[in-house]
């Protein structure tokens, strides 16, 4: 590892010399820009940061970051990142993926990354469409969606990415939006600071093939009624404090505070409660507010730490490397 103390970086220090080639107006620009702004605040030496991606529009991300990076193959970034982090646990490793890359072709790897709890940060840019292949429905597209490959409407029931992550025992699960830079930055920062796999779903607008997919969550006039911001220890309020959520048994219920619902009955956000986190992930219907922020976070031993411990233990138990004795084995004989 380098011994140079981290320099005080500026956002532009993280910008590579490559021209950014996303479509004008793409939500990816905002995510890139917030990433370049948040990294200087994290105090990590630039040479210790690696972006690993798969295939898709979002996966071009590493080319635009002046750090180490790998644009790998479709769906496999979680596995590449696992190998890299095991090889060098000191690195800050970021996986950039999309709804197709991460949940369709690479769903298997993503699930295993999450359960192992390798200390990497996963940003899943969800635009609910295949953009780079020009507009087919994706595993997060709503059922019945009309696209080039589904002229009569898609048949597939969509994935709920946060429920998927929680089901895979992710130790950090959050959702944020490309159109809310402050929220996005805060979540990125928390994700990096979390030890273990951080799973961050970013709602990202594809203005060419799926424009406005998340409009009700981002539009100034509509978002208050359709989103609920998660703050640990605070009650779940939305629609500018007019409405709130409470838990009735195992069922979330929308209550109208103006109609007399009691404030102290409200569901208070506890990101350490996995059952409640799951209920939050299931706020997925049209009538329910979409949860934004950190749904769940737990401290759990990381995979690469456990791997390092085994290596150290092996040295203690078996002894230091001795190639000659290894080659000789237990039963050898001499021919003279």
């Amino acid at each position: 590892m380098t011994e140079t103390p981290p320099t005080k970086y500026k956002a532009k220090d993280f910008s590579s010399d490559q021209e950014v080639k996303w479509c004008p107006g793409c939500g990816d620009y905002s995510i890139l820009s917030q990433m370049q702004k948040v990294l200087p605040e994290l105090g990590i030496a630039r040479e210790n940061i690696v972006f690993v991606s798969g295939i898709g529009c979002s996966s071009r991300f590493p080319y635009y970051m002046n750090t180490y990076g790998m644009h790998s193959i479709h769906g496999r970034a979680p596995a590449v990142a696992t190998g890299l982090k095991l090889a060098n646990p000191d690195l800050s490793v970021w996986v950039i993926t999309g709804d197709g890359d991460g949940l369709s072709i690479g769903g298997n790897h993503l699930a295993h990354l999450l359960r192992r709890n390798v200390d990497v940060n996963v940003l899943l840019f969800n635009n609910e469409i295949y953009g780079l292949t020009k507009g087919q429905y994706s595993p997060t597209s709503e059922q019945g969606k009309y696209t080039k490959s589904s002229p009569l409407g898609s048949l597939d029931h969509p994935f709920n990415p946060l429920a998927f992550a929680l089901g895979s025992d992710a130790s950090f699960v959050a959702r944020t939006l490309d159109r809310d830079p402050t929220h996005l930055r805060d979540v990125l920062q928390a994700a990096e600071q979390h030890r273990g796999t951080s799973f961050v779903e970013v709602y990202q607008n594809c203005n060419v093939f799926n424009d406005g997919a998340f409009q009700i969550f981002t539009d100034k006039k509509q978002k208050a009624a359709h989103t609920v911001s998660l703050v640990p220890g605070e009650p779940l309020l939305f629609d500018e404090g007019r409405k709130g959520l409470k838990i009735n048994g195992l069922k979330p219920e929308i209550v109208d505070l103006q109609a007399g619902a009691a404030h102290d009955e409200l569901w208070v956000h506890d990101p350490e409660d996995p059952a409640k986190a799951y209920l939050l992930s299931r706020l997925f219907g049209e009538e329910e507010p979409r949860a934004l922020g950190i749904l769940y976070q737990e401290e759990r031993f990381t995979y690469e730490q456990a791997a390092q411990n085994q290596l150290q233990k092996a040295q203690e138990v078996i002894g230091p490397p001795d190639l000659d004795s290894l080659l000789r084995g237990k039963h050898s004989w001499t021919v003279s």
Partner: protein
Amino acid sequence: MSDQTQTLPKVTIHFAGDSGDGIQLAGSQFTNTTALAGNDLSTFPDFPAEIRAPMGTVAGVSGFQINFGSEAIETPGGRPDVLVAMNAAAYRKNIGNLKSGGVVVLDTAGFDKRNLKLAGYQPDENPLAHKPDHLQFYEIEVTKLNREALSDLELGRKEQDRSRNLFVLGFLYFLYHRPLQPTLDFLRDKFESQPVVWEANKRSLQAGHHYGDTIEALTRYRIEKAELPPGEYRNVTGNVALSLGLLAASVRSGRHLFYAGYPITPASDILHELSRHKNYGAQTFQAEDEIAAITAAIGASFGGQLAVTATSGPGMALKTEGLGLALMLELPLVVVNVQRGGPSTGLPTKTEQSDLQQALYGRNGESPLPVLAASSPADCFQTAFEAARIALEHMTPVILLSDGYLANGSEPWRFPSSEQLNPIQPPLAKNPQDGAAPHRPYRRDERLVREWALPGQAGLEHRVGGLEKEVETGHVSYHPENHETMVRLRAHKVQNVAADYPATQLVQGSEEDNLLIVGWGHTLGAIKVAVRRMREKGHKVAQLHLKHIWPTAQDLPALLQSFPQVLVPELNDGQLIHLLRDRFLVDAQGLHKIQGRPFLADEIENEALKMLSND
């Protein structure tokens, strides 16, 4: 009691029994003891793909063959001299294979009504009632005698019968003048925490040995020490030797080993072996699938480790895209294919050489990469070391071909000392001086090899990826001429690997001979025996065996073209032969066998003699 001893130059014993009978253990213990006794040897286990196929049936027979002697042993032997049959199925499956004048050692309990029926004999049929005259039989009540020996131990019938294999082993040790001590040491270590089991195993082995002493007019055999080149030896299987080769390359390159694998027969033993050596800083990662195994290895390679993944045919198919990525990234990576019978799931426990063309050509785009093949269990060490050297020094993925026969077979190995292994020098990038020009990740040295700049090195930040690279800068480029240049550079870089090869040597014979037999992989031993026999009879036959299959050696064309006739025996339908014909316009003939079984030396000899007589 008798002590008539006959000295033999070599013996082939085939152990056979139910897959739960402990055949592999008996075989490997006999092997270990025989190796320590100073014989040359070669072994080959043959087991069913099922863990416990229906008991007592022919499908469930597990076999282990050892060929050992005072003379040079090249193969596990063709037809055995001795058959050990623990039951009727094992007898039925193997009796036809035994040499005339051979010896059969059997447990009579395995020939009761039930076992005969399970083995597929008719109700009134008993093979022991009509034994072939030319064979010598030791019909031993193994089960009964073994139970008697263990009667005062607190063990059930089932537990008692578990050490029947050791009773038979003890008898064979008596027959062949082998000491019991190495096996006793092994059993004591193995059953350290189970004193009753250890006692039972010890008694069974000793009881079998004493039993031999009670037989009248028994002929025992002595096999003198072999004249092996001086040095230190151990016995080793191909998979273990391969694992040690990788660890040695890790030590000699100063790069920690990162091994990622997904369980698959017959490659899993590499994962098992390496996971025992974490004190070398070697990490083993059991991935969620074959694709994750190769891509995790690529991640580790990007991070600066000696990255390796191993698999077998179907897994290799899954790794194809990852291989293409590693080739494009120009990162070191060793991919081992322990071949088995294909296509698809094929014959998981049988051997074949049918993935050569997959290794050479099985990727999208123009994507040549180095391909090496190991030729014997012990040679798996050198070939793995060489594969790692090429990968690290030439910044390229390398495919190493082994197969089921090498993986599980064993032979004595004259292991090198660490100093005899050349250091491996990967082209690590130096930390840049202040004000140095920006790092160019695809700048190449005179061998066309790029530098290995590792995350964590300040000032060398760069991006790599599967999209076509611009020459030198490594930026994404769709420029037509650049693509052609890069395709040629990558191919040329791989060609340059051949500059490191030593001069090609014939295994036997000279360029004056009339027929050259060219092989690769595990056929080395069988071809050696065939060529030796023919040369002893005065035929002008030479042998060449290829370790480096791609790129081909620079002196290979001239050598091949100096022979009027060329024969290429392969355990496939003709794969290397196409390469030789395509590259060198050699009018080679093929000899093909696709039965999941290795060649017999006779088969090669017969084909070669046919070619010589047509001449």
